[in-house]
Every structure is written in C-alpha cells, then in structure tokens.
C-alpha cells in the first residue's frame, strides 16, 4: 500500500545520493553535444549529472544536466508532462540573476526530459551542515538568508506569473567557490511527480502546510526559507521531527547566540497561515537588513514585537518596530493585608472558617484570629507542639493533633476544650471529619476513627508504622501513607484494610484522589499514581530528592513540590511533566491551585504565585525565613505561615 513515514522519506531522499535508475553512464552523449562525465546526485524522479559541452571541443566547458523521467505510460499524460516541462524550462531560461544558475538548453529524448544548467562549484548547505561541529552564527545566517531572499524576490516578481521555487532546503542552496549563495534544483521536477500515489512531493520538514494541499505560492518559499534557517541554526533536522513543529522547538533554546529579534523573524516566516508571514521576500530581506545593521546588543534587538505579524499591514510592507514596546510587568512583591506574630515557628497549614483563621504553632498554642484583619481571638495551649497538624473545623469545633499524643476537640468560638483523646504517640497528621467521625493517624503506628461529639473510639487500625500523612477520606474509603513506606486504603465503615501498596521509603506526603487515582509523594523521591480500587501503580514520576510535599490535583494536572527545589506539574493520566519551576531551596510546602494560579512556599523564604499555564511568576513574597507551611486560600486571600513566627494574609 506504499505507506511511508517521514523518517523513511528523510533517509530515502535526503541522504542516499546515488543514481537509483539505470541512468546515464560516463561517456554517454545527449543531443550529440553533452558528454556525460559522471553523476552529481539523484532524487526520486530526477538525476543530475556533470557533462562536458562538446560544442567547445578545444576547451573543457562543463555543465550540469538534469534528467527527469516521464513515468506515466499514458500518451496523453506524457504529452501534457512534456508541454508543462517545456513551459517551465523556457521561463527559467529567461531568468537573469547572479544567485540563479543559467539555463542554456532543454530537450526531451525518449521517456526522459533534460535541462542543461550552469555548473555550480562548491558545496550545498546540507553537506556544509554535516561538516560543521558548531552552530551557524547569526551574522552568517542573516547574510545567507538575505541572498536567498534576493533570488526569491527575483523569481516571485516574474510576469505574468510569479515563479515559485517550491523546494527551498539546505541541499538546494549552494555555497559556491566564491562563498556566494546560489539556488539550485528548481521545483521543475514536480511536473513529473504528479499522480504517483503513496509518495510525498516536496521535502518533508521544510514545506509549508499549504503545499500539501497542492498550493504553491511565493509565501511557501518564505516558509521553507524559515525552516531552512531553523535547521541551520539548531542542527535539528526537520525531516526527523513531526512536520510544522518549529514553534515547539525554539531556536534560542538550542543556540543561545541567536537574538530574540532574529528568532522572531524566522518564526514569522514559519507561521501556519501564509497571511501571517512576511508579505514578500523583499519585506523579509528588509527586516533582516535592519537586524544586520544593528549590533546584537542594541535595545531594539530585545524587542520580539518587531517581527510579529502586524494587526494592520504596514504600508511599506516592512515590519516596523513599535515606538514603545509594551513593558512586561516585573514580578512584584505583594503587600500583606495583615500579619500576626506567634511565639514560635509556624510549619503547619492554617484552616479558615467563618471569618476565623486557625493555625497551630511550635509554641504549643493553637491560635484563632480574625481572617479579615488578623485580630487575635483566643489561643489554646496544648502540652507540646501543635505545629505539625493542621486544624480541622467541623460545625462548632476545631480538631487538632499535638506532639503531646492527644487529639484535641476545641470550641470554635471560645477556644475551650470539648474533649481530648490520648494515643500512644505524637500526632503530626491532621485530622479529617466525615460522617460525624474524626479520622487521623498517630506516631504509635495506628490509625483512629473517633466519634466526633464525645471523642469515643469507633475503631482503630494497625498501620504497622507511624502515620504522619493526612488521610484523604472519600465516601467509602480512607487513604494515607506511613513512615514504614506503605500506602493504605481502609474501608471507612470498619477500618479494615482494602489494599496496601509499597513505596521504597516513608510516605509522609498526604494523598490526593481524583478520577479514582490516588496521588502521593514519598521520601524515595517518587510521585506515585495508584488505582484507588486496587492499589496498583499506574505510573510513577521520579524527582531527584525526597518528597514530603502533598500533591494537589486540578484540571487533570498534578502539582507537587520536591526537596530537589522543583515544583512539578504533571499530566494526571500519564505522569508526563508539563512544566516545572525551580527555586533556590526545597519545596516542602504543598501547592494550592486557585484561579489559574498555583501557590506554595519554599525554604528560600519566599511564597510564590505562578500562572498554571506555563509557570510564569505572578508575584512572590519574601518572608526572610524558610516557608514550610502550605497555603490556604479563602475568598481571594492566601493565608500562610513562616518559620519567622508570622502568619500572613496575602491578596491572591
């Protein structure tokens, strides 16, 4: 069925430069005038030979002979093909431009048509690319591109019809023995390729999208020149990449010597829509000329708007730099709405409910503050730190665990104790309430379910190791990790283990569940995605350092921090990284997503707000001491504590 992949085409067309058909042999004579010396190259439908013009018997005058095979057996089609060839040959013969080789003759013999051209000595840019170890420098690239533009403009200006080159690519651009750029191998061969099903015309990788619809316009040559420049500057062969993916492979990422202005010009050439490209080769050349005259450090150079398509076409046909480039907002420091100082570090997350903020601190107190102005309401003293556990507000009670081994139930309004429940270990995990029961794990290696009003034990389950991970509780199940490196799924009704899965090290991170997938991080540095029904690992993502941050899932995307300093943003279904953001510190904080932005703290002391699209910084807030806490967002306000003892309310 003649299936081909582009990879195959690339290897077939780009590299194998040997005559495939039983073509002309050295010594063969054409028209009793051109004696073949040897082959120069071959494509799918044509071959090029070096020949000697015997009309000059006393000197060795060499020329190039392009031979095209008339494949069609149909006599009418054959006639049409020859006519079409002769028409194009006549047009080429009329051209007069230093970068375009002269056509001196054409003829048809049997099932082949021939074109006699000026022989260019030198090497084509494909060969040049293979010899180079360094990336092409911008200055040379601009100079070559301007020479190609000159030639293209000459072709495109022909009357009554513009001539479209149709096949601009490195192997069709020669660097002659005087280091001048010459275009070779006109798309004339295309005439012979029609109707051959299962094979591509044009060169994969360089051709514009519209050429695959059979459209050949001058704008297509501009695209192909852009593609050629991209290849020359990045050394990424577009024949080996999916077509039309230049925008996904920015030049400056590979070759930092390329300025944004030059890259923007190339990217404009590579617009999918021909309308968005430069209006003609002259406009492109003018834009390049402006660039060539300016030193690379010129202020104007950093303005990528120069080469962007104008919303209103400029009258000169040249992209004109806007007078004042719009300033990109510098990530700004936000001002806190209020701040409140506790007597020791805050490492836990705050809870917000009905105009009240609750947070535990390492000074053993639970604080209740007015969420609008930070005004102090009450504090509740435990006998040891409450800084690890996040308060949970349910009805009129606040639940929190303490290093003094108790779980406390405190009256929301007054801060008085309703009841407390003793376990045999410190409680660093945060309690969660569901079905009038409070669920939490303890360092004593058990997981507890207490009735919420009196604090009586309903059941307790053996977790075989300390539980510091906060449980995710859904309608039927409870998910949490243990310091023993297990992830447990318990039935909420009975506390019976439904399944357990194993990580390689402790699971302190708290699981998140979405679409029946459990996401959790581990000190083994891995993010796990487990099937919520079976505990099977669906995928895993490895960071470089331990993970204590808990994941958050939003819009099919998983956000999680790592102590390798990155916030990782992963596709929920595949675990593939969408983007990451590196800070100068570790991320123990668990990210929160709100209104297209993700919020988290870092041990560099900074609270970050990034756009969820690509991770651009919306704002940052420097607290001056490591931020281990995770943010809580309510009514457009971010509440977050720092190890500098302060809790802050920041405008989201």
């Amino acid at each position: 069925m003649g299936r081909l992949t582009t990879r195959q085409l690339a290897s077939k067309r780009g590299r194998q430069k040997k005559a495939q058909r039983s073509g002309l042999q050295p010594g063969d004579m054409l028209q009793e005038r051109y004696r073949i010396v040897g082959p120069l190259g071959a494509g799918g439908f044509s071959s090029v030979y070096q020949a000697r013009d015997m009309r000059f018997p006393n000197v060795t005058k060499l020329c190039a002979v392009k031979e095209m095979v008339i494949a069609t057996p149909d006599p009418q089609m054959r006639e049409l093909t020859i006519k079409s060839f002769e028409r194009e040959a006549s047009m080429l013969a009329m051209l007069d431009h230093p970068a375009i080789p002269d056509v001196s003759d054409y003829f048809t013999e049997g099932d082949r048509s021939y074109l006699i051209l000026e022989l260019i000595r030198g090497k084509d840019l494909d060969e040049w690319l293979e010899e180079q170890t360094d990336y092409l420098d911008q200055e040379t690239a601009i100079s070559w591109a301007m020479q190609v533009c000159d030639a293209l403009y000459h072709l495109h200006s022909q009357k009554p019809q513009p001539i479209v080159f149709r096949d601009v690519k490195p192997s069709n651009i020669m660097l002659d023995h005087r280091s001048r750029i010459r275009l070779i191998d006109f798309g004339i061969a295309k005439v012979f390729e029609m109707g051959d099903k299962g094979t591509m015309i044009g060169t994969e990788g360089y051709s514009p999208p519209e050429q695959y619809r059979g459209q050949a316009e001058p704008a297509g040559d501009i695209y192909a020149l852009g593609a050629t420049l991209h290849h020359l500057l990045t050394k990424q062969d577009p024949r080996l990449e999916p077509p039309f993916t230049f925008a996904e492979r920015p030049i400056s990422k590979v070759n930092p010597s390329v300025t944004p202005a030059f890259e923007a010009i190339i990217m404009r050439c590579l617009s999918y829509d021909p309308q968005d490209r430069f209006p003609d080769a002259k406009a492109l050349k003018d834009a390049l000329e402006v660039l060539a005259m300016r030193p690379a450090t010129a202020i104007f150079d950093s303005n990528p708007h120069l080469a962007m398509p104008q919303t209103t076409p400029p009258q000169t046909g040249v992209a004109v730099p806007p007078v004042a480039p719009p300033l990109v907002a510098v990530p700004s420091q936000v001002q806190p709405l209020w701040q409140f100082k506790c007597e020791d570090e805050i490492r836990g997350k705050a809870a917000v409910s009905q105009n009240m903020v609750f947070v535990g601190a390492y000074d053993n107190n639970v604080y209740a503050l007015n969420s609008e102005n930070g005004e102090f309401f009450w504090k509740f003293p435990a006998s040891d730190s409450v800084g690890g556990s996040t308060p949970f507000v349910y009805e009129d009670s606040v639940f929190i665990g303490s290093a003094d081994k108790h779980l406390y139930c405190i009256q929301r309004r007054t801060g008085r104790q309703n009841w407390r429940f003793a376990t045999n270990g410190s409680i660093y995990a945060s309690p969660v309430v569901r079905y009038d029961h409070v669920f939490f794990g303890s360092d004593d290696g058990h997981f507890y379910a207490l009735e919420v009003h009196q604090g009586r034990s309903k059941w307790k389950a053996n977790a075989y190791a300390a539980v510091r991970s906060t449980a995710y509780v859904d309608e039927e199940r409870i998910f949490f990790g243990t310091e023993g490196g297990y992830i447990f799924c318990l039935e909420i009704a009975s506390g019976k283990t439904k399944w357990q899965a194993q990580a390689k090290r402790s699971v302190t991170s708290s699981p998140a569940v979405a679409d029946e997938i459990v996401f959790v991080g581990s000190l083994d540095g891995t993010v796990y995605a487990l099937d919520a029904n079976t505990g099977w690992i669906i995928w895993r993502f490895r960071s470089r350092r331990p993970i204590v941050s808990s994941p958050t899932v939003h819009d099919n995307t998983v956000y999680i921090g790592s102590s390798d300093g990155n916030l990782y943003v992963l596709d929920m279904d595949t675990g593939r990284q969408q983007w990451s953001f590196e800070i100068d510190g570790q991320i123990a904080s668990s990210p929160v997503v709100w209104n297209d932005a993700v919020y988290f703290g870092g041990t560099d002391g900074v609270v970050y707000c990034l756009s969820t699209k690509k991770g651009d910084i919306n704002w940052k807030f420097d607290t001056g001491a490591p931020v281990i806490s995770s943010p809580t967002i309510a009514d457009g306000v971010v509440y977050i504590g720092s190890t500098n003892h302060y809790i802050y309310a920041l405008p989201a």
Partner: protein
Amino acid sequence: MNETPPFIQPEDKPHKPETTEAKSTVAPTAELDDTAIINTGVLSNQPDNEPTLRAAVRCDVGARERNEDSCLVFSTEAGGHFSLVPFGLYIVADGMGGHTNGHVASRIASRVAAHYILSKIYMPLLQTVGPPTQVPIQEVLLDAVQAANTAVFEDDPEVDSGTTLTVALVLGRRLHVAHVGDSRLYLLAEGKLEQISSDHSLVQRLQDVGTLTAEEATMYRYRNVLLRAVGQGEEIEVDTYMRLLPRAGKLLLCSDGLCGFVPDEKIQKVMEQDISLPQIVDELYETALASHSNDNVTAVVVDFSL
C-alpha cells in the same frame, strides 16, 4: 517500630456494614464500641452483575492481495469470593506494506507486545500469595511497545519495515492505552463515540495546524503518510492514554482500512445497533467495503460491563 504489614489479598466485594458477619470479623486489634461500624449511608456501588468483557474480531484482507493487519484479543474472568479483576488485552497492528514485509512487522509487533504484557501483568495476577506487580502499568505498556519496536527493527534491519501498534488493556475499570501510528481506539458510551488515540499521520498534523478540515481529510491524497511507526529505528516515541471506564460501553480498535473510509457517525450507528458483537464487526467490515475501502480492514469490538 516499622513492621511489615501482612499482605492482604484484595477483595472486590466491600464489607456490608449491616451484616452480623461483618461485625464479628472486624479487626481484632480494634477497641470496640457497641457498634464498631460507621454508618456511611453509602450503598455499595458495585453492580449486581458480575463484570464482563466480551469481544468480537474481524481482520480481513479486504480489497488487497495480502492481509498486512494483525490483531490479538485476550481476556479472562474468574468467579468466586476472591474474583480476579476483569482483564482484557486488545491489540491492532497495521503493517506498512507495498515494498516491504508489512504482514511480518504487524505480526511480530502484536505478539511481542502481548507476550510482554501478559508476563508482567497477567501472570502475577494468578499468584495466590504476595502482592501483584510492583511495576507501574504504564511503564509495562511503554516497555511492551519498545520491545515490539526492537523486535521489528532487529528482525531485519536492512529491510525497511514498520507497523502501527495500538494496545488497549482493560484492568478492572481502568483502560490503559499505548499507541503508535494511525490505527485507532474508540470508546462508545452514553451515546457518544470518542476517539481516544490520536493519529500520528500527516493528515492529522495538517488538521492540527488548521490547513485541512476533517471533511477534506477523508479525501486527502496523502492519507497514507505516517509520522511515526513501530520498527523504524532503535527508539520509538509512544503515546499513552488512560481512562476510568464507565460502567458499561463498547471499545473499538481498528485499522485505517475502516476508520480512514467510514466517518465516525456511521461507525457509531453500526455499533449502537441491538445486534450481536460478531454481527457488529461484520457490518463494520461491510460498511468499509461499501465506502470504497481499498485497504485491509480490522475491527475489534469489546463490549464491557464493569
């Protein structure tokens, strides 16, 4: 104090809080209250019927002289208290033909991938003790396609052969997919036919950049140009997909001999008819021929109730 918890054989059926049997068997370590069961008010979301996976296949030479498509179906069910999770493996491969051994490539690719997945995921399921596989399922699928790629590539590196490869694994209620090429996987559920895999073809790419409309695509002359195929090099880039399946529906895996000629709406109509699965695949084949398919035609239809 970290101990190794005993391995718990997962059970499909949740404990019903109301039964006395459940009360008497709660964890012996629990400090029991009068009723050590929390009433969640949630009834079991398990369907009454046992889960089923049924499939029918039509892999036909069609208008060609040689069938270069290959397909493979493997599914099991086991009853009892500790019933096995539903397991179904479905593979379609469409060899790149004409000048080379497309039929060999598609055969090697489908079998190597199936062998790898069955040994890494299915065989461990049959163990009576110990946990199931610790290797992430998506890594198994990716490795399976890599293994298929290596096998096709090394079969005869001089011969430029290749194949598409679409692997669908149903495990419990989850669908895992690994995919290269332009064969397709569709999900039909709740009156909607959704194409899950995305074609690695020039036609698809031209549609992505807005040069070609979906309508033009079916008539497009370079429809048979792939951008990726198994067996073309030492490494292969593989797309993976994952879905939580609805309780009931149908899957369709097919080669472009079907979906390249028959529009989605027509495929959906055929699949929605109240006829047997073998009748559905036969009718899909007939529809492809009636739509002037000049290629091999493969259709694997899976009816699931999970």
